């Protein structure tokens, strides 16, 4: 099984502790959201869990092996990482952009093989992009690009998906769609970890919440247990959490 384990993660930049002894375990089939105020270290944590940043202390293991010991290509097949507000640098077609998610699977100088073209098509379909597949990625709207990037991340069907702010800049419908797509992956037994700002959305879909403030884990609890007291401690705001059939909404007072 591919359990991601973080133990005692610490990173110091200058005099600031960006991450301070963060430990957590992520099992397959779990949907964890990381919440916290700006500058809490969410993005740093996501990059560290993806194995892209050097740690000052602690380690991250995937299936019992430290990320640093896994060959970059192997790691790339097993986990996908989407940074905050990803950008396409050249006007390549949406189809090509999605196919780039298969980079670790591709032979050197080879093109996408037929069975991989099927995967690309499936990912395009899952993210509602078939109509846009020949459009240049640089001409997409924010919501379309976010969908394309998500398709890029899931095209190789990695067991572990790390997404930093998948709903930033998206309108409500696209934000809900994005979350629904992540949820589908969790239902299929994959691990999803997402840093999210929209609390209502986060609490509606996630199974577990990690609350981060000043680089420390303030709470690591089931999503259903998040209460107003935690939000007060986290954001210094008074809030009321309403849970009903339609999901969760958070009202700030």
């Amino acid at each position, binding site marked *: 099984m591919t359990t991601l384990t973080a133990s005692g993660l610490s990173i110091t930049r200058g005099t600031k502790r960006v991450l301070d002894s963060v430990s957590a375990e992520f099992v397959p089939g779990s949907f964890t959201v990381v919440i916290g105020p700006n500058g809490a270290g969410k993005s740093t944590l996501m*990059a560290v869990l993806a194995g892209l940043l050097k740690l000052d202390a602690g380690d991250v293991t995937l299936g019992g092996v430290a990320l640093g010991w896994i*060959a*970059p290509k192997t*790691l*790339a097949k097993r*986990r996908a*990482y989407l940074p905050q507000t990803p950008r396409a*640098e050249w006007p390549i077609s949406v189809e090509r*952009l999605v196919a780039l998610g298969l*980079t670790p699977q591709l032979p050197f100088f080879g093109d996408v093989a037929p069975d991989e073209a099927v995967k690309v098509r499936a990912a395009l379909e899952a993210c509602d992009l078939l109509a846009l597949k020949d459009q240049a990625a640089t001409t997409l709207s924010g919501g379309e690009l976010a969908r394309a990037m998500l398709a890029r991340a899931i095209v190789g069907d990695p067991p572990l998906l790390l997404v930093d702010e998948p709903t930033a800049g998206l309108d409500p419908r696209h934000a809900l769609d994005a979350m629904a797509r992540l949820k589908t992956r969790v239902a299929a037994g994959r691990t999803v970890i997402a840093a999210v700002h929209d609390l209502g959305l986060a609490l509606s879909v996630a199974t577990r919440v990690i609350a981060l403030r000043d680089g420390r884990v303030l709470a690591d609890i089931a999503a259903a247990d998040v209460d107003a007291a935690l939000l007060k401690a986290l954001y210094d705001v008074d809030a009321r959490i309403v849970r009903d059939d339609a999901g969760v909404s958070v009202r700030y007072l």
Partner: protein
Amino acid sequence: MNGRILSFGLFAVLLAAALASLLAGRVWLTPNEVVEGLLSADATLAGLIVGELRLPRLTLAMAVGASLGLSGAVLQGLLRNPLAEAGLLGISTGAALGAVVAIYYGLTASFALATPLLGLVGGFIAAALAFALSRSGGTLALILAGAAVSSVAAAGLALALNLAPNPYAAFEITTWLLGSLADRTWDHVWLGVPFMLVGCGLLFLTAPALDALSLGETQAESLGVNMRRVRLLALTGTAMAVGAATAVTGAVGFIGLVAPHLVRPFVGYRPGRVLLPSALLGAVLLLAADVGSRLMSYNTEIKLGVITSIIGAPFFLWLVLSMRRRAP
């Protein structure tokens, strides 16, 4: 698919240009004369012109053009900057400075290949400096470090001109800086082309990483791309290919800048797929410019670098403007 047709087409054009370059010049030859001259055992005029003058010149033109076009494509893909080329990282200026030092100290008198050899050394030092200065940072650090190295090398060139021991040395330096393929011999070919071949090989190795870099550096790294390795490959490759190119021909601008832009739309803007056609087009452009320089010259030869700049600069401006109209 499109890219393959483009590469075949460019290859055919390259062959045609190569043939033209063997025939054209102050003495016009017919294809028959060329073949007979090369095959006959005794030295004929045509045989001498082709074997000793035009063939080495043709070989160098193709190798230099391909090196410039390829390194431009790799650097634009690596830095994701449409203005990137070897000059931006100070490698061609460094090579030029090395060569000028050789001319300045009159080393050519004692050893004919001193100029290209020191040019190579200069290119390597510039690349190593740019790489060392940008060690900790990313792409932007590399561009800034390259700009700094380039400025220092340019200052060195100015100083060499300023301190030139006699007007003749100053003249020799400026002439060399204009870039030319005239009077290059097989010695230049043997010295420069192996470096260019190895350099181009290293540059081609970056292709898959350049594709992944369309998603930005973080995502490329998450896809298993080792950014340090790619940067090292691109810089070493450019130092070898363009360093050697500049060392044998002098500074030839705009080919590295223009060639990738011209072929990019035909390969769906995929940075890895731009490399081969860009190298081929670079060779075609340089060959065409060289034939042009031979045909236009009556009393004074118009230098290769002058031709590429005179045609290249306005063309580049037009290219940028038309691109802005197409894609905002």
